[in-house]
């Protein structure tokens, strides 16, 4: 009985004008000025897959209680983007929006200045909708299992924020995080870049991206690829990306029409 359509409701296909009006209304509810036209949208890419995990976790969450919680502890998992699972660290249970950013560096530029390998990553945080504040942000990069190295060999992975670039010499860097991993490990590495993201949102012109460097156990700089780190040229479902969590700082009211 509950699903019967009330007599006054006429079931028919929308005419094209009505369909356009409906689309305009829904876009306005979604807070979008127009319908997005993504150029490369692979739903099987790493970021959309990760976000879909979050969406599914959140939808389950909404059914149970009004909340949105995502475990923020960096999770080193052995398979693809981890399922966003409930954990005691409901660090972000009131996030209103989560956004993943594609890496804008078109190809892996393995820099070899003065015997120092490193890889660059850039993300455009300018497109954040108005009135959203970053509550947390992370950089995710996938590490493959590499056969060629001994299982008990370790690598030290360091993530830097680029502060200043100089022509012809190394950039000024600020160390954000360092992680020591086993050669035999496989899965997503998660680095906390919350402070950096807030800085980039506040001063976009200082967003010069991130750098990643790898050192072998004996302190030698090495090519990240040899440590199994997947770059922009790797498989789509393992490419590095950044994800940020936001809280709305103002209520979104639709403009009067």
């Amino acid at each position, binding site marked *: 009985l509950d699903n019967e359509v009330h007599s006054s409701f006429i079931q028919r296909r929308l005419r094209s004008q009505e369909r356009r009006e409906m*689309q305009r209304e829904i876009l306005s509810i979604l807070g979008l000025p127009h319908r997005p036209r993504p150029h490369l*949208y692979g739903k099987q890419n790493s970021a959309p897959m990760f976000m879909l995990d979050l969406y599914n976790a959140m939808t389950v969450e909404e059914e149970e209680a009004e909340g949105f919680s995502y475990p923020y502890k960096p999770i080193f998992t052995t398979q693809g983007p981890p399922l966003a699972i409930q954990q005691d660290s409901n660090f972000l249970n009131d996030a*209103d*929006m989560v956004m993943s950013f594609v890496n804008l560096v078109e190809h892996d530029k393995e820099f070899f200045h003065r015997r120092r390998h490193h890889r660059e990553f850039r993300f455009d945080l300018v497109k954040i909708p108005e009135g959203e504040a970053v509550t947390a942000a992370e950089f995710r990069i996938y590490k493959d299992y590499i056969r060629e190295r001994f299982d008990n060999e370790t690598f030290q992975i360091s993530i830097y924020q680029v502060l200043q670039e100089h022509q012809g010499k190394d950039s000024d860097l600020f160390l954000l995080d360092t992680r020591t991993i086993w050669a035999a490990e496989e899965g997503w590495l998660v680095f906390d870049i919350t402070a950096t993201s807030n800085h980039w949102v506040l001063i976009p012109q200082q967003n010069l991206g991130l750098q990643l460097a790898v050192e072998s156990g004996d302190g030698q700089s090495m090519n990240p690829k040899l440590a199994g780190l997947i770059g922009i040229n790797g498989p789509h479902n393992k490419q590095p990306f950044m994800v940020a969590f936001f809280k709305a700082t103002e209520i979104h009211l639709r403009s009067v029409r």
Partner: protein
Amino acid sequence: STGGKQRNQNRSKAAKNQDALRVSNVAESSSTDQKQACKKHELYVSFRDLGWQDWIIAPEGYAAYYCEGECNFPLNSYMNATNHAIVQTLVHFINPDTVPKPCCAPTQLTAISVLYFDDSSNVILKKYRNMVVRTCGCH
């Protein structure tokens, strides 16, 4: 004051009872021509039908709802009638030409989440609070 007030109270109580009786009589008659009672009806919004499945990753659409139906007396049969609806009903019976009956409207709302690509192929997961009717009732 004591006595006088007491007498007044008795008189006003009798008058009130009279009124209450009248109100309920009027109410009875109106409930006989009961049309569709106030309740929630489903309206499915399909992003696919809108041709948006290329940029909206999830959901494929969502069950929106709308409230429709009459708010007739006695209101206590509507589990979701707000307390104010009862006051509104009584005042409506006293001044039916100027004060409207309580209206059939949402009494609880829930959020939905939408996952979509923006123009730069970044992915946005956004929670829209108070977007969908959970229960309807008489306000």
